[in-house]
């Protein structure tokens, strides 16, 4: 099963094998009470199972306790009828899942007020990245960290918990933590996450530093500042932002920021302007090799958590493609997709702004509430559009690559690559990173999501095939001739495998 295969194997047998557990119960039910357990069980309990019980963790630990009553005391506490323990099939108990974890938030030593915030967000157990990273992040003295984890596995919550744990709450007007994100939407989103997780933390102050959000000559007076690199740089230069007491600095979508010429420079400048930082954190779902070296300079002697390339895709996202007759024919097919399955919110990625507007008009006509976001919109307008989508006032978002990364709307259940993501000079090569970030807008935290990519000619088809090869995934083909058949295929694909596991494992 995992790092301790021996013990966990035998335990699993005992717990899961219906016959075995029944036998255990039958043979030991005559021992007078729990004081005389069978020897093998006692051995296991007495052996160094700190790791083992920890590995199963959390609510599963109660499963163990429940399990213990059966072999130890027969059916003492429960009805006379035996109920067979469930196999640990839940994603957080599956070691291959990125959401697997061994511990509870309580065990990670998180402040009680922060815990309340997590519970109110319906977080029940830490994910793998949280469970691995948080002990390192919260350790003293503070250490730098470069962390990679699949989309929708709780990276943001991990660094937000870290930030909230590092703050000195006696100085509510002194900026102490800075968080940088590549787009204003993402910065706003992180701001929202800090507010939600910190909703029960008394005295927490937070401010966004995105274009248009801070008045000229007004000083930033919040403990946590979340912003985009350019605006933050300007604010520091103009002495509106006091960086003398910075405890934590965090870059979300770090590879994207460090990779881009302008953003990378700005990040570096911001860092150089801050006299002293205790802890520098870099988070992303992707870290191409070239960026990794730069990241290691940016965040020196950092703890690193990395993923292999074939671990990057999330199994909960069902990836399909639609063979369209022509570029224009994609409209009709798009409109028809919405009756095929249960769709919460959906995001449609397009290449050009005018395609976005055309699709928006068409879908609105069909009764959808549609919003479109691209670089033609500015500042506060973009904020409110994305906010409408986030709250569910609008359920279809049409956008260009500006929102490919990081945006987390949990109810998004379908992502459409209306155009296959391309990069390089005159869009000559496929862009697997962007593809991964795009489809990662759905399937958040172990939910099931669908991604459908539209291809219509040789170029788009071979680009998609290359992306599929890059990540080693199989794409399911959909047919536009018989919608009843397509409906059945989609249903099967959605049901096919559990969410949360990697396709490879």
């Amino acid at each position, binding site marked *: 099963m995992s790092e301790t295969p021996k013990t966990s194997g035998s335990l699993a047998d005992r717990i899961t094998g219906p016959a075995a557990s029944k036998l255990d119960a039958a043979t030991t039910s005559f021992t007078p009470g729990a004081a005389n357990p069978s020897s093998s069980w006692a051995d296991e309990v007495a052996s160094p199972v700190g790791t083992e019980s920890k590995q199963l963790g959390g609510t599963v630990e109660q499963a163990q306790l429940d399990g213990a009553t059966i072999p130890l005391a027969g059916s003492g506490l429960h009805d006379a009828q035996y109920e067979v323990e469930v196999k640990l099939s839940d*994603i957080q108990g599956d070691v291959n899942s990125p959401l697997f974890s061994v511990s509870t938030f309580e065990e990670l030593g998180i402040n009680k007020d922060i815990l309340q915030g997590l519970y109110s967000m319906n977080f029940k157990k830490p994910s793998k990245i949280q469970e691995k990273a948080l002990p390192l992040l919260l350790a003293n003295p503070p250490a730098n960290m470069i962390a990679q984890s699949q989309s929708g596995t709780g990276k943001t919550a991990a660094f937000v918990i870290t930030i909230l744990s590092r703050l000195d709450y006696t100085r509510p007007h002194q900026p102490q933590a800075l968080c940088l994100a590549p787009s204003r939407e993402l910065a706003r989103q992180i701001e929202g996450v800090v507010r939600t997780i910190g909703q029960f933390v008394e005295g927490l102050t937070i401010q966004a530093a995105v274009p248009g959000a801070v008045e000229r000559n007004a000083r930033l007076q919040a403990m946590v500042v979340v912003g985009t690199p350019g605006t933050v740089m300007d604010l520091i230069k103009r002495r509106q932002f006091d960086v003398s007491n910075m405890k934590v600095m965090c870059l979300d979508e770090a590879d994207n920021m460090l990779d881009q010429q302008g953003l990378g420079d700005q990040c570096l400048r911001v860092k150089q302007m801050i006299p002293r930082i205790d802890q520098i954190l870099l988070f992303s779902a992707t870290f191409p090799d070239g960026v990794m070296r730069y990241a290691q300079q940016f965040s020196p002697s950092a703890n690193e958590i990395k993923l292999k390339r074939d671990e990057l895709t999330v199994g909960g996202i069902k990836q399909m493609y639609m063979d369209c007759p022509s570029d224009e024919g994609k409209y009709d097919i798009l409109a028809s997709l919405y009756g095929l399955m*249960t769709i919460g919110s959906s995001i449609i990625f397009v290449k050009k702004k005018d395609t976005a507007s055309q699709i928006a008009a068409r879908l609105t006509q069909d009764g959808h509430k549609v919003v479109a976001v691209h670089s033609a919109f500015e500042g506060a307008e973009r904020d409110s559009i994305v906010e409408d989508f986030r*709250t569910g006032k609008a359920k279809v978002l049409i956008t260009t690559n500006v929102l490919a990364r990081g945006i987390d709307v949990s109810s998004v259940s379908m992502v459409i690559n209306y155009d296959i993501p391309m990069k390089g000079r005159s869009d000559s090569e496929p862009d697997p990173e962007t593809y991964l970030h795009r489809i990662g807008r759905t399937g958040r935290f172990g939910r099931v999501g669908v991604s459908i990519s539209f291809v219509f000619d040789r170029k788009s088809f071979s680009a998609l095939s290359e992306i599929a090869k890059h990540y080693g995934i199989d794409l399911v083909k959909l047919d536009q001739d018989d919608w009843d058949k397509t409906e059945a295929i989609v249903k099967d694909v959605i049901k096919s495998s*559990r*969410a949360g596991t990697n396709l490879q494992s």
Partner: protein
Amino acid sequence: MSRPSFPGGATSPASSPNDPRPSDDAADDSAMAYYESDWDERNSEATHAAALAKSKALHDAVREKAVGTLQIEMLRLETERLRLQRIQTAERVRLETERAMEAVRIREEENKAKLIPKPPPRVPTPPPPKQPVQQPTPPTTTPAPANPQAGESAQATSQAPTPNLFQPSQKQAPQVAVPPNSQQPTIPLQTPASNPLQAPSQHQHGSQQQNHVPQPTQAPSTLSTPKPEPSSSQPDMGKQTAAQHQRQKTLHPSVDLYVDIHKRLKMLRALIRKYGEQIPQFKKATGDMRRAITRSVGQLTEGRDTNKDQIRTIRAQLDASLQMTVPPQLKEDLLYTPALLMTTTPVPSREDNVPHNGDTMPALTIYLLNILAKASISQLCSEAGANPNAAEPIGFVLVSIFATPRYCFRGAPLIDILMAKFRVLCPVLFGLRGNDKTEEGRARLGWKKDANGNWISEQEHNDRMTGLGAGFASISLRDFSKSSMRNPWPAINYWYALASISCTPPGETSSTQFVVLKALIDNYTNLFVRFFGDMGVRALHVVLEDFPRKAPQGNVAASSLQVLAAKLRRDTGLLLAAG
């Protein structure tokens, strides 16, 4: 005994080896006398024969007597056992009668209390809750009848057809006992009707007998219980009936019917699919209608009047199905009896212009109502699981469609189609319990399995339960006070759901319950308190403060329920802790 002194000792006992010992001795004594009187004849064959015959007769007599005594003793024991059994039955019947009468009395008083101010004309609501015993029932939903007895009889008639159609086995003693007692709120003594029925029973306890009016009606129900166990002791019997009552209290009475309805709906879908395979146009038409409904349900958003187009589209499909020209060869087959999909069959309405007042409705309309329910449930599971706010418009649309008279049967909404799905997917709402760490428990809790037969993940399960809980709340807490339509699923059902979850004994709680409860309450406290007032606040106290304490230490789902209480305190200033 001086056995060696007998000359014939060696043969005499051997001749009757089967005789019991005591009679052996008696035979010896009489033979001795005989020998003494006629010494010479002592070894003749006649003497031996006579002696043997005599002793055999004696043996037989003694044996017969012993057997007789034994039989008498066994008869005595049997009568004693029967007597005890009768006493137990009598006692139980007395208790149940009293309980039923108490319920009747309380309801009559409630009705009286309601009659004093002449109530304004009310929206007609479905027949009152079918459990006379359930006390937390606030009186808001019972229609105020002209006089209490009329109310009783109306209820009785409305319930009467149900068992015949669907549940021949489910005869609950309290229900049967109610009508005769309703005439007399005090303890009924000898009623003439009961005596003839009583006659065939035994005649030992005449004094008690008179008090046990419903005994004959009780008798068949005792017989029909799965385990009669005639020899069980009194406390056991008591426990058993107590357990039965416990079950009846916690479960919605029609809970099991929903499972049947769910199966019938599956059959209906299979039927429509079969016709579609026969007639391609029919397949295309139904497929288009189905997809139009699914898409419309997916398009629903929050906000006032934002969903008009979607509702219009859904209604358009349903209306089309009502008027659809059916292929002639299917004309007969495409009529369906909606009563099969209802927990209680409504009587045909006497008012004019009630649509579908006959026995059937177009099967396609019911199929589409089922598709609407199915699409909505699926939307709740996926979308509202991630974002519970999304449940609000779905509940609104569902209730307004199901309340629409032209989609009703004999004026009664077909909402049981929807509830059957809730019952199967989220049994917790209907008071079912299970341990979410065991296979059987998960099955009881509605924990889904994926295509490979594995349980879906805890996260997915919690999402589904959250969505379904929020959806149930959104459906139940609808305000119909300004509507002329009949509320298909009044708020009392929400109370039942809260009550049946929070009455779970400490050992039987499950995380699923806490998750469902949180979804039921989060975002819906305003509406709930508006419907139930102070009692609602008190109920919230029980649910948010008391109930989570029944959870095992460190249950995260229970903790998040407690966080909900803290959030209420912070956001609305509602204090639950003082109680």
